[in-house]
Each structure stands twice: as structure tokens, then as C-alpha cells.
């Protein structure tokens, strides 16, 4: 069971002479096996929060627990899968070799078969292809397969489909939900899209900027598995509106 607990976390970066505070007083818990979406304006520190969980850098104050230990121990025992905004594939390796990379680095046998993972993300037949031969969407599928190679307990995604067109993106989201359900990982998704956040997540965490703070936590009580027709549902729309109001606040009010 891997719960992510963030308490009293703030993060500042030194920027030339001054200091910039990216996050302040963050207090959230992501339940084990849940899917959480982080949404907020640019500069609200949602990517920073994701990187704190992945131990890319430590928090300035506060503490983070990933399962039974700190983010560093979770990272060192290969419990974290990370999908970046860019595919970040190694162009000199083919698809399967890219998927196998985390196991190679960890010097352990892949916890999931790279060829089977390639099939899971819908790239059967492309095992030997080089990244430069794939479309952007296919490259990002490889990145997802790679993140799952060591069967991570935590799956962190930083706008993984941000560069894709709306249609591909919708399709990838459906597949991502299927893959996540099957993996049982605790997932955190950073996104800019309100409908994506509501469609994917059990909980939408709305952040505000300067410095990044949690402005609202909205739990999305919609049935799973989620299908596209859910987006026509009135409940779906009301959740979208809740997120929208949390993001835009007073701007949403009808002028008197």
C-alpha cells in the first residue's frame, strides 16, 4: 500500500539574487491506489510538487512520505515511475530497449516484460522501431511503458499528453486509465485541462499561484470504468464547473 502524504511542504528556489517561492504550506494526502489530478495556472508549482514526490529535489520545509519511507528511499528502491512532458526517449535505442532502460539501470530483471508492456500501450509490432520513426503520441506511449517497467507503486505524470492533439489525447487518456487500473499504482497527473482532470481523477487538487497553494480539493464521485459518454453526464459538467469556479473564483460570478 502506497499512500503519499505531504505535510507542511514549501519549496523555494534561489533565482539570481532573490528567492522565488514555488510552493507554500502544502498539506495533502493521496490515498493508496488513487488517481489524483493537479490543476492550476502556470507557475502554481504543480510540476514542482510532482518533482518533490519523485525526489528530484528536496522540499525547503515540511515532509513527504511515500508509503513507509521518504521520497529518496522510494526513488532508490525504484518505486516511482515518472512520465515527463517530453517523451525523453533515447534516440539510439529502439522501443523495447527504451522500455527496458529502467531495469538495466536498476540492474534487476524487468518486473514487467518489456515486450508485453509495449503491447499494453498499443505498440505491438513496433518493438524494433527507433523513436524518430514514431509519432509524438506513439513516443509518449513508449514513455508510459518505460515508466511501468519496474511495476512502480507510484506513477507521476507531468502533462504527459500536453503536446498532443485533442483527439489523440482523449484516446490516450482512456488507455491510461485502463493501464493505471491494471497496475494498481497511486497516480498523480499534472494537467492544464479541466475536463481531463475531472475525467481521470478521483480527486482534483486545484492550486493557486504565487506562491503555489492548495485552493480547493474536489473529490469526483463518478463511477469507474469511465467512458467517453460520461462527458455528456450532467454530474460530469457540474464537477467541471466546480473546478472552474475554484480556478477562476470571483471572475466566474455574474456581474450585477
Amino acid at each position, binding site marked *: 500500500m502506497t499512500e503519499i502524504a505531504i505535510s507542511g511542504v514549501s519549496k523555494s528556489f534561489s533565482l539570481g539574487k532573490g528567492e522565488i517561492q514555488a510552493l507554500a504550506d502544502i498539506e495533502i494526502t493521496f490515498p493508496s491506489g488513487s488517481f489524483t489530478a493537479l490543476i492550476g495556472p502556470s507557475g502554481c508549482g504543480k510540476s514542482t510538487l510532482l518533482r518533490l514526490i519523485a525526489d528530484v529535489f528536496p522540499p525547503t520545509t515540511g515532509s513527504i512520505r511515500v508509503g513507509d519511507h521518504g521520497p529518496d528511499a522510494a526513488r532508490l528502491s525504484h518505486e516511482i515511475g515518472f512520465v515527463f512532458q517530453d517523451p*525523453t526517449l533515447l534516440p*539510439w535505442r529502439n522501443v523495447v530497449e527504451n522500455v527496458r532502460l529502467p531495469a538495466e539501470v536498476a540492474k534487476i530483471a524487468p518486473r514487467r516484460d518489456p515486450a508485453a508492456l509495449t503491447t499494453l500501450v498499443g505498440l505491438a509490432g513496433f518493438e524494433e522501431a527507433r523513436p524518430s520513426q514514431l509519432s509524438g503520441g506513439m513516443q509518449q506511449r513508449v514513455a508510459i511503458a518505460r515508466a511501468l517497467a519496474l511495476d512502480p507503486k507510484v506513477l507521476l505524470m507531468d502533462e504527459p499528453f500536453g503536446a498532443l492533439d485533442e483527439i489523440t489525447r482523449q484516446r490516450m487518456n482512456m488507455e491510461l486509465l485502463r493501464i493505471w487500473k491494471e497496475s494498481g499504482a497511486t497516480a498523480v497527473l499534472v494537467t492544464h485541462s479541466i475536463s481531463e482532470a475531472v475525467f481521470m481523477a478521483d480527486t482534483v487538487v486545484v492550486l493557486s499561484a504565487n506562491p503555489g497553494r492548495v485552493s480547493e480539493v474536489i473529490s469526483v464521485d463518478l463511477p469507474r470504468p469511465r467512458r467517453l459518454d460520461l462527458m455528456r453526464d450532467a454530474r460530469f459538467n457540474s464537477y467541471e464547473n466546480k473546478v472552474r469556479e475554484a480556478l477562476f473564483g470571483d471572475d466566474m460570478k455574474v456581474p450585477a
Partner: protein
Amino acid sequence: MTPAGTLRSIAPPAAVMVALLALMEIAKAAGWLPITVPAPSQVVAVIPAQWDNLVYHAGGTLRSALLGYFAAACAALALASLALSREGAERPILSLGVLIDCVPLIALAPIFVIWIGQGSALYITIAGISSFFPLLLGTVQGFKATDRSTRELFHVMAANRWQRLRLLAVPSSLPYLFAAMKVAAPLALLGTLIAEWMGAERGLGAMILYALFSFNVPVVWLTIVTICGLSAGAYGLIALLEARIVNWGPKGVSGHG
């Protein structure tokens, strides 16, 4: 590339060369060229008599150029590693490279004659100095050719220093290294030649001087053509190796799909 494709890409430049040589031959026969410019056939005619001589001197030059090039590559690798492993070391090291590159070799060579005297050591040193800067620049740029997300990926995967170097930094740097190696190879030959002019007994630089002093114009030209051939050959050999090794398309570490 298919054989037919290779032919298609080689044919036009080859045709231009042949046409130019034919034009020169005709111009010489018509008496339009001065005595200092021989006909191509005159240059070819001296090859049999000069062959052993040419091989002897070319061998000397090649050896010095190769050793200098190799030494420069090692120095570039060591300094580039130092530049990138210590905070703030990159600028002074690159500045040093620029400084070395800015001093004209022809002015530097006599100083080195005084310091280390005539002989192989001199030719190798000058060859190394003349090919050093592009190698240093290429190595530094190559080692920096990874993007932030990919470095973060290796961090999240808990890769150690050696794995980062072997699995990421070295392959990412190869396109830059090969570009630098292609530029530097003819420079190493040029440096050797300049050093040999300072008074060598063996080497194409020496051969060209002997021919010049005995006013043997075709041999001077033969030497020049040989040097061009060696430079182009070195470049071509590295380009061939590059095509074999860097076979993953135009992009470096993939950013956007």
C-alpha cells in the same frame, strides 16, 4: 545508399573535377599557363620516379599528425571532463582553448623549436595544438547535449554517475564529437606541415621544400595534391565511421515528437 544512389551522388563533383583537369591540360598545351603551373599530366608523369620518396615523406607526416591528433583528443577529453565536473571551470578552460586557437601557428612554431628542438616531438606538438580547439569545443558541447527532463529521468531511475555517462552523456555527445573530429583531422595535417617547414628531414613539408629549392615544379604540385588527398581521406574516413555509429536520425536526445 544503393550503388546507383552512390554513383548519382558522386558523379556530378567527379565530372566537374575531370572537366577542370582537362581544361588545365588544354590551357597548358596552348601555352596559356606560366612555367610554375604544370599540366596535370606532368604531375602524373613524375609519380613513378617519386613514388618511394612520396610514401616515405607522407608516412612521416601521417604519423606525426595522427599522434598529435590523438594527444589533442585525449587532452580535450580530460579538459572537457574537468570543465563540466567543476562549477565555474568551463569558462576559463574554454578561454584557454580560444587563446591557443588565436595564436598563429606559424608564429608559435619557432618558439617551440627553441623549446623542444627539431624532430618528431615538435611536429606532434604543433599538430596537437592546431587540432585541439575544435576537439575541446566539440567535447564540451557534446557532454552538455542532454536536456533537463532526460537528466531528471536518470535521476528518478537512480542511475549512478557511471551509468549516466555510459547510457546518456557519451551517446548524446557522439554527433558533436564526430563533427569536431571531422574539422580537426585536416587541421592536424596542416599543423604537421607547418612544423615540418621549420626544417624537417622527413615529411611532406620537407619534401615540398626540397622540391621548391630545386625548382621541381611538378613535384611541388604532387606534394600539394597528396596533402589534399590525405586531408580529404581523413575527413571521409571519420564521416564514414560517423554514418556507421550515429545512425539514429537527425535529432539528438528526443525532445518534442
